[in-house]
């Protein structure tokens, strides 16, 4: 590994100041499971690593039926994955966590870190966007809250500015009659980066969909909302025909590229397949 200087700030204020003072090659360490890979594979020049793990107040997980699930920036993927409440209430999110790298990695990786890395193929992003999660950010000027759907600006890029530190996430409590699912498509069953990831969260009234959010991973510069496909579902009775239309619409809304994992055409057709399957399953899911 290339050498770097190591810092252990005790407060958010101190960490934020370090990031500003040390400049663009200073990076936050939370889980480290992406950062150290990027350093070793020379994808990122890193002069300084700012470990935020000794900063108090970011390790809590709380559940409030009115607010939803709140967790801090230092909560690991594995902690959330193994919580029965998460598995029950947010099976889509739990599935995304289960499919993220390996248990060893999930024991270190934080969900907030996975979000801040802003990979278009990150597994946690589609279900959290589909569920309307809010991200909390420390800025030198004070705390900010932002819908996660607005957080990403491009591959590896977010609205965080130098000195900003994401501190936690809130996932709103699901509506009483709702279904949510995340489907990941990869060549292997584990240790995969998604070729395509599709999250669908729907609110229902019998066999009518009252509200829908569809998030598409790995088919654009950021995880995308398929808004027109969502609009097709809203207020409609779910039929196989409608599901086929929604799948086609999602295909039209995505903007995939070709790379070593798959061609753009294949990715687009998988968006159709997975969206159809996800809508069908989310409508049938009992929660």
């Amino acid at each position, binding site marked *: *590994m*290339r*050498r*770097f*200087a*190591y810092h*252990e700030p005790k407060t958010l204020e101190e960490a934020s100041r370090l990031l500003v003072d040390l400049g663009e090659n200073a990076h936050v*360490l939370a889980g*480290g*499971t992406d950062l*150290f*890979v990027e350093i*070793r*594979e020379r994808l990122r020049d890193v002069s300084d*690593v700012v*470990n935020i*793990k000794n900063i108090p107040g970011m390790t809590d997980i709380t559940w409030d039926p009115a607010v939803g699930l709140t967790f801090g920036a230092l909560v690991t993927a*594995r902690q959330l994955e193994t919580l029965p409440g998460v598995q029950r209430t947010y099976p889509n999110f739990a599935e995304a966590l289960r499919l993220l*790298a*390996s*248990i*060893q*990695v999930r*024991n*270190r990786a934080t969900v907030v870190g996975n979000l801040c890395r802003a990979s278009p193929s990150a597994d946690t992003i589609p279900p959290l966007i589909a569920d309307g999660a809010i991200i909390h950010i420390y800025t030198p000027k004070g705390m900010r809250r932002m819908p996660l759907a607005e957080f990403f600006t491009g591959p590896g890029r977010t609205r965080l500015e130098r000195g900003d530190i994401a501190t936690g996430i809130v996932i709103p409590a699901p509506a009483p009659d709702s279904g949510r699912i995340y489907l990941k498509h990869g060549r292997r*069953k*584990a*240790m995969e980066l998604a070729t395509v990831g599709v999250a669908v969260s729907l609110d229902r009234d019998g066999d009518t969909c009252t509200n829908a959010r569809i998030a598409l991973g790995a088919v654009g510069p950021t995880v995308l909302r398929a808004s027109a496909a969502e609009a097709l579902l809203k207020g409609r009775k779910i039929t196989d025909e409608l599901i086929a239309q929604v799948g086609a619409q999602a295909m039209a809304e995505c903007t995939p590229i070709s790379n070593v994992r798959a061609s753009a055409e294949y990715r687009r057709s998988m968006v159709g397949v997975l969206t159809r399957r996800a809508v069908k399953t989310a409508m049938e899911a009992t929660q």
Partner: protein
Amino acid sequence: MKQIVELTINGDPQSLAVEGHRSLLDTLREEAGLTGTKKGCDVGDCGACTVIVDGQPVNACLMLAVEAQGRNVETVEGMQQSIDILHPLQDAFMRHGASQCGFCTPGILMMARKLIEENPDPSDDEIRFGLSGNICRCTGYTKIFDAVRSAAAEIRAVRAQEETV
């Protein structure tokens, strides 16, 4: 600049002088002389460097040594019950041919140990899921699954016997 990291490795308190950028893996291998933990990729993809930190299996390559300050680290070298007695998993790996070249073995043993501790009677799917972050390129995994099942059964039998006594 080196700093002193105080941690427990396989039950022994240790003070190691390490640079801030050094991984726990390099520190175990190069500074602590514990070379049982292997470096297969150094980027968290292969699981050969799996160690248990405060009860949780992690890739030692993806953790800085300084992050292990005050922690309890367990490696394959601490797995034996005594000098003469192997852990049931170690014995089962020998009997079932679960180790061929042996390079993945320490990491898989640590992972399997954690798996059995959490779930004394794992199903085949649970074993497969539990080991999905560990690459073995020699065995096709079949013999590893056999060994894990066999060791879990042995541990359950010993426990059952202890409970009746």
